[in-house]
């Protein structure tokens, strides 16, 4: 829209450029508060953690390829297994979905110029990085967490696990939950308060509904994990009693609190994937999502029911059967909102005119894997079946179909789908489709045989097994599948890097998507939109009259807000403008605050409590520095 703009319009755009410009160079990345740059920081960091978690998985698969292998010993295996789970869940999927996709896309989709709290946004990234460094530094001292990602007591107590392994785990997760809580809070308030004028709830993109549901779940689920880890550290380091029977504690308390967090967590992981599916499907099916309000409700309902099913992870712990029956029934209930969504996705493709390009292919794979993983999930809701297969590879098969097949496949599709928006260049379609088939076949080969070996009796969390149990062939197939999958993922990485360098320019809207991010240039300018768009439907990019009106507003200077660093605040329900928010400029304080917190956690780990207290006091000083600079002072 900037082509041959008359001088008055050009002057407005230049004023916006000046107001939103950030410092160039490496220092600019340290002090940035731009949600797009923070989103990219999240993206590349989580990709590094994804690679680490993937290498851990491949090492385990190599060890398990044949019976009696001696690639890695049992202690190393335990550490790799634990770190694989911890990394993939806390340092890959959550920060990738809420941190990278949520950060980059939510403000663009709701027509805002940034997140509600830009400096807090930077803080949540730097805390996440600090927590990741903290957790991974455990490998340097050969004491990585080793009691599984669920870290059950009494195994995780000092008596049975005397090193610093579990301390890295518990402190690292407390650290990580702080970052995730801040990120979720920011997304919720952004969605509540910064939606474009006219974007009432019924016009908000389903992607944002999914992000809202995931963020609300984080807000209400993470405290249980934080408290659990605090209890564990108090017991391990200071001799408190929460989990030991002898002094009136209870080992099952750990499991209850862990799964009160852990089950909502499954939906926290998979909801953003639903959101990505509901973005990709309408675009490539050339049809709005069918049953739009039902799908929005279903997304929120999944998150809500997710809080009432935690004990289905504990069917084999000896809890009273009457209690278990309640949780089994509640678990069955999840089928309803899940199925509503599956039918809505399929029907949208059915009534539309689908173009099977790479992003939609990944969504196809996602739906298939989600159905397979969902069906084995329903089997687990039957208590006797769960008790028979607990701790076997059948469980591993089930949750990898959900966590990898259903949660990661849409992410991979989403990477291709929004690549042109983020970089301004097209990805290579042929390589992308090849990478789809490799990852698709790899996923099936890796995880499907696990159902069979599980039913044959192979237990989880074992580092080796005997010859002659009939497991060898399946395990070999799984390992080969793992490497095929890795090749497919590597190909996606290669595609991204090559296309970033020499992809064809994509233009503003290569796929004719329906949501607001496609109305602005690729990559979007720092201020996202020259005119804050006014919205009258859930697919504003398809409302051509509205978008032409936006251009006329630029000429009239309406809703340009070029006088400062500004974005409108709107009312929570109907998206009517309630104020103009002055946004803070870039700031060095978030990264400094996160640095002091990181130092404090290392000091807690080494039991230097007084010094750790001083580090926290230092953090308070950084917060003073932070708050001394008020956004409005820029305007005067």
């Amino acid at each position, binding site marked *: 829209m900037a082509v041959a703009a008359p001088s008055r319009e050009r002057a407005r755009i230049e004023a916006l450029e000046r107001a939103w410009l950030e410092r160039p160079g490496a220092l600019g990345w340290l002090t940035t508060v731009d949600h797009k740059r923070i989103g990219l920081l999240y993206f590349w960091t989580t990709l590094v953690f994804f690679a680490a978690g993937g290498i851990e998985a491949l090492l385990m698969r190599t060890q398990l390829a044949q019976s009696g292998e001696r690639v890695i010993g049992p202690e190393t295996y335990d550490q790799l297994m634990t770190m694989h789970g911890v990394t993939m869940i806390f340092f890959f999927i959550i920060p990738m979905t809420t941190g990278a996709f949520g950060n980059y896309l939510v403000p663009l989709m709701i027509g805002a110029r940034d997140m*509600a*709290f830009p400096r*807090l946004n930077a803080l949540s990234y730097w805390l996440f990085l600090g927590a990741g460094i903290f957790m991974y530094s455990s490998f340097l001292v050969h004491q990585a967490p080793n009691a599984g990602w669920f870290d059950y007591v009494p195994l995780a107590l000092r008596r049975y696990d005397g090193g610093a392994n579990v301390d890295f785990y518990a402190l690292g997760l407390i650290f990580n939950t702080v970052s995730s*809580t801040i990120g979720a*809070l*920011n997304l*919720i*308030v952004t969605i*509540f*308060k*910064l939606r474009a004028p006219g974007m009432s709830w019924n016009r908000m993109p389903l992607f944002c509904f999914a992000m809202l549901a995931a963020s609300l779940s984080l*807000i*209400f689920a*993470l*405290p*249980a994990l*934080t*408290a659990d880890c*605090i*209890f564990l550290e*108090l*017991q391990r380091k*200071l*001799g*408190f*009693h*929460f989990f030991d029977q002898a*002094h*009136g*504690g*209870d080992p099952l*308390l750990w499991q*209850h*609190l862990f799964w*009160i967090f852990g089950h909502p967590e499954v939906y926290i992981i998979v909801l953003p994937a639903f959101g990505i599916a509901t973005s990709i499907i309408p675009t490539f099916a050339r049809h709005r999502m069918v049953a739009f309000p039902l799908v929005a409700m279903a997304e929120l309902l999944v998150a809500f029911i997710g809080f009432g099913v935690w004990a289905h992870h504990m069917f084999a712990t000896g809890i009273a059967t009457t209690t278990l029956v309640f949780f089994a029934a509640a678990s069955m209930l999840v089928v309803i909102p899940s199925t509503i969504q599956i039918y809505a996705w399929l029907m949208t493709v059915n009534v539309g005119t689908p173009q099977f390009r790479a992003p939609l292919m990944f969504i196809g794979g996602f739906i298939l894997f989600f159905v397979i993983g969902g069906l084995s999930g329903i089997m687990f809701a039957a208590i006797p079946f769960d008790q028979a297969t607990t701790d076997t590879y059948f469980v591993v098969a089930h949750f990898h179909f959900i966590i990898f097949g259903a949660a990661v496949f849409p992410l991979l599709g989403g990477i291709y789908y929004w690549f042109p928006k983020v970089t301004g260049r097209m990805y290579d379609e042929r390589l992308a489709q090849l990478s789809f088939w490799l990852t698709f076949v790899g996923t099936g080969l890796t995880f499907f045989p696990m159902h069979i070996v599980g039913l044959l009796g192979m237990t989880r969390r074992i580092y080796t097994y005997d010859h002659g149990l009939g497991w060898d062939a399946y395990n070999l197939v799984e390992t080969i599948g793992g490497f095929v999958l890795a090749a497919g993922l590597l190909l996606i990485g290669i595609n991204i890097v090559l296309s970033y360098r020499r992809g064809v320019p994509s233009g503003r809207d290569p796929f004719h998507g329906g949501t607001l991010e496609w109305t602005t240039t690729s990559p979007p300018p720092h201020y996202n939109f020259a005119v804050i768009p006014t919205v009258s439907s859930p697919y504003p990019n398809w409302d051509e009259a509205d978008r032409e009106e936006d251009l006329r507003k630029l000429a009239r200077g309406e*809703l340009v*807000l070029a*006088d*400062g660093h*500004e974005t*409108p*605040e*709107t*009312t*929570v329900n109907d998206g*009517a*403008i*309630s*104020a*103009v*928010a*002055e946004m803070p400029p870039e700031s060095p304080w978030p990264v400094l605050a996160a640095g002091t917190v990181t130092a404090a956690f290392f000091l807690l780990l080494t039991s230097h409590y007084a010094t750790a207290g001083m580090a926290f006091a230092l953090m*308070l000083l950084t917060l*003073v520095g932070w*708050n001394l600079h*008020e*956004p*409005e002072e820029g*305007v005067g």
Partner: protein
Amino acid sequence: MTAATLPVRHARAKGWWGMAVFVATEATLFGTLVGTYIYLRFHNTHWPPARLPKPPVLTPSLLTAALVATSIPMFVASRAVGAGRREVAWRALTVAFAVQVFYLVWQLHDYVDAIHRYPPQESAWASVYVTLLGAAHAHVLVGVLLNAWFLVRIWSRLTRYRAVGVQATAFYWHAVNVITLVVLVVQLSPHL
């Protein structure tokens, strides 16, 4: 400012909503702590263990009553900053701050005693008792720091940013007062 040219409807600022979500997650944290107390209570015949003296009643009740009463000056301050009345807000904040500091100092003094009387290494009851009280006092400390900050900030000038901050802090205090009441009930529950 551009706001003048736009049709503007009155609504809570995003800063207030940020505090509301923060309070929601903190309330959940306390829900977890209280839930743990109740859960462990049903796994023990004697709760607290019979060999320990029961927790005090009078002092924590009176202190909590005083703290909860600070919701009134906090409410006044919150209204006053909304109306741009800086001096009224500052005075109300000062009153609240004095009571809150009094409460915190006394409670911390008693807390050190409690750790000696009920060493958390002694039993699960002592562990969860000390943890719950510690968490409650930590939240009061955060509120005291927030109030101290805004007393300094609105001494000279009231901006929209600071006004939203005071309103969010008032909301935080209402929540902390409710949490303190719940913690008090849990603390006194062995006497019921």
